[in-house]
C-alpha cells in the first residue's frame, strides 16, 4: 500500500465574501459580511452565541440549502467562481469544501468504509481506495492507531478518535477547504489538543475555516481571526472586524472586539 502523493492546493481554496447576508424565511440573520479567506491558512470565526458564525460557515459549502427556507444574498467566490451561480452543483462544491461537525458523527459502518464513503460517492476506482484511505487517515493523524483494525466499527473508537476519523473522512474527497464547526468542543482536553495539532499539520495544503467558542484555541491555531456579533435581536448579526490573529488578540481596532476577547461579555 503506497500513499498517493498529497496534492498541494497552495494556491487554491481562497474565499471572497462580498456583502453576504442570510435570511431564514423573512428574518435576516446575518448581513453585510465582507471577508477574504486566505488559501492554505487557518481562519477562525469567533463571537458570542447567535452571532451567525455557524450560519456563515454553512454558506461556504451551501449546507444552508438543506435547511429549507434559507436565502443567501451577496456573492461568495471560491477561487474567483461564484458558488451560488446557477450552474454550480452543490454536490460538487461539497467535494471541494469539506466539513467537520461539532459532535463526532461517523457513519454506522467500519473505519475503512467511513473514509471511503466520499471517494466512492464520487467514483474513485477501487484500486486507488486503499491508498487514499491510508493517506487520509495519516493526514488526520489517526493511521497509527487504527491501521490494524480498519474493519472495526467506527463506534468502537473513542470520541477524539471518532472526530479525527471524521476529519479523515472529509479529507478523503481531497477538498481545498475544510470547514470546522467547533470540532473540539465535545472532546476532552487531550483529544482537543490532538485535533489542534492535526489542524496545524493540515493547513499547509488545505484552507481551514474554524468556528470556535474557545478564544485560547483561536489564538493558538489560527492565522487570521474574524469577530462576529449580533448586537440586538432587532438587527441582523454582522462581521465586526477581521485581521491577523495576533493583532486581534493584542491590539483589536474595535472596542467591541476588545470587550469580547477580554471577557467582558459573551
Amino acid at each position, binding site marked *: 500500500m503506497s500513499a498517493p502523493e498529497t496534492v498541494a492546493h497552495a494556491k487554491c481554496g481562497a474565499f471572497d465574501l462580498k456583502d453576504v447576508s442570510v435570511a431564514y424565511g423573512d428574518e435576516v440573520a446575518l448581513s453585510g459580511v465582507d471577508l477574504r479567506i486566505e488559501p492554505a491558512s487557518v481562519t477562525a470565526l469567533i463571537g458570542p452565541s447567535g452571532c451567525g458564525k455557524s450560519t456563515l460557515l454553512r454558506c461556504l*459549502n451551501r449546507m444552508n440549502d438543506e435547511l429549507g427556507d434559507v436565502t443567501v444574498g451577496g456573492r461568495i467566490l471560491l477561487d474567483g467562481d461564484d458558488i451560488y451561480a446557477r450552474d454550480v452543483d452543490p*454536490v460538487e462544491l461539497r467535494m471541494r469544501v*469539506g466539513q467537520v461537525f461539532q459532535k463526532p458523527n461517523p*457513519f*454506522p459502518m467500519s473505519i475503512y468504509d467511513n473514509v471511503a464513503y*466520499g471517494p466512492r460517492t464520487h467514483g474513485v476506482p477501487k484500486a486507488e481506495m486503499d491508498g487514499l484511505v491510508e493517506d487520509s487517515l495519516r493526514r488526520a493523524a489517526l493511521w497509527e492507531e487504527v491501521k490494524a483494525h480498519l474493519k472495526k466499527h467506527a*463506534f468502537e473508537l473513542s470520541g477524539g478518535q471518532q472526530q479525527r476519523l471524521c476529519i479523515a473522512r472529509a479529507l478523503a474527497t481531497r477538498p481545498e477547504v475544510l470547514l470546522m464547526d467547533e470540532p473540539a468542543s465535545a472532546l476532552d482536553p487531550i483529544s482537543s489538543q490532538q485535533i489542534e495539532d492535526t489542524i496545524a499539520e493540515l493547513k499547509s495544503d488545505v484552507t481551514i475555516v474554524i468556528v470556535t467558542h474557545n478564544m485560547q484555541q483561536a489564538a493558538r491555531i489560527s492565522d487570521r481571526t474574524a469577530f462576529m456579533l449580533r448586537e440586538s435581536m432587532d438587527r441582523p448579526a454582522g462581521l465586526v472586524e477581521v485581521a491577523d490573529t495576533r493583532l486581534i488578540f493584542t491590539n483589536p481596532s474595535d472596542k467591541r472586539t476588545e470587550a469580547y476577547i477580554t471577557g467582558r461579555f459573551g
Partner: protein
Amino acid sequence: MLSAVGLLGYLLFRGLPALDWRFLTNMPLNDVPGIWPAIVGTFWLTAGTAAFALPVGIAAGIYLSEYARRGRLTRVIRLSIANMAGVPSIVYGLFGAALFVMLLRYGLSVLSGSLTLACLTLPVIITSTEEALRQVPSDLRQASLALGATRWRTISKVVLPAAAPGIVTGSILGLSRAAGETAPIMFTAVFFLTGLPKSPFDKVMALPYHIYIMATQPVKPQPLVVWGSALVLVAGVSIVNVAAAAWRSRARKKVRW
C-alpha cells in the same frame, strides 16, 4: 403479558394433541384430516402481501420522512394513512371484493387476497418506516450531504441501513397481523375445500379461514382440528416475530447513538 402467556398455554394445551406429521401434511378430506393446503395458502397470501405492501409502504415512508415538505398535501396524506389504519378489516374485505375480484376480474385468488391484505398492512409499514427513519440522527444526513453525496445516496447508503432494524420489525409485525386476518380474504381469496394453488389466480385455503369454518360447522364439529390449526397459525407467526426480534437486537448492538 399474563393474558398472552395464558392464551398461549391454553392453546398449547388444547392444540398440541392434534399436532402430528399427518395433520400438517395431509389434505383435509383424507381419513386423517390435515391442514396442508391451508398452511400453503397462508404462506402464499402472506408472501404476496409482502411483495405488494413492502415496496410501496417503505417507499411511502421514505417519502414522508425524507422528502415531503410540511404542507396541506402532506397533512392530507398523513390523515389518510391514519384513517386507513382505523378501517375495520371486513371493510377491506368488501373493498377488495369490489375492486380486485369484480372490477379487475382477478376473481377469488391469491392475487386478490394479497392485494387486499396489502391495503390493510400498508399503514403499519408506512408508519413504522417513517418512525424508524426519524430516529436516525440528522447528524448522519448532514455528514453525508457535506461529503457531496446526493440526497438519494445519503438515504440509501446511510439512513436506510441505520433504520433497517426498525423497518424490518414494523414490517414483520404488520405482515404477521395480515397472516392471521380472516375477514379481508373471506370474499377475495379463500375457499373452504380446495387443492393447492397452481398460479396466483387460483383460490386457496388459509389457516384463519379454516379455523373459522371448522369452528362454525353445524355438524360434526372437529375441535381438535380447530385448536390444532390455531396453534399452527400462532406458532408460525410467533416464530417469525421472535426471529425478527432476535435479528433486530443483534443489529441494534452495532448501531447506537
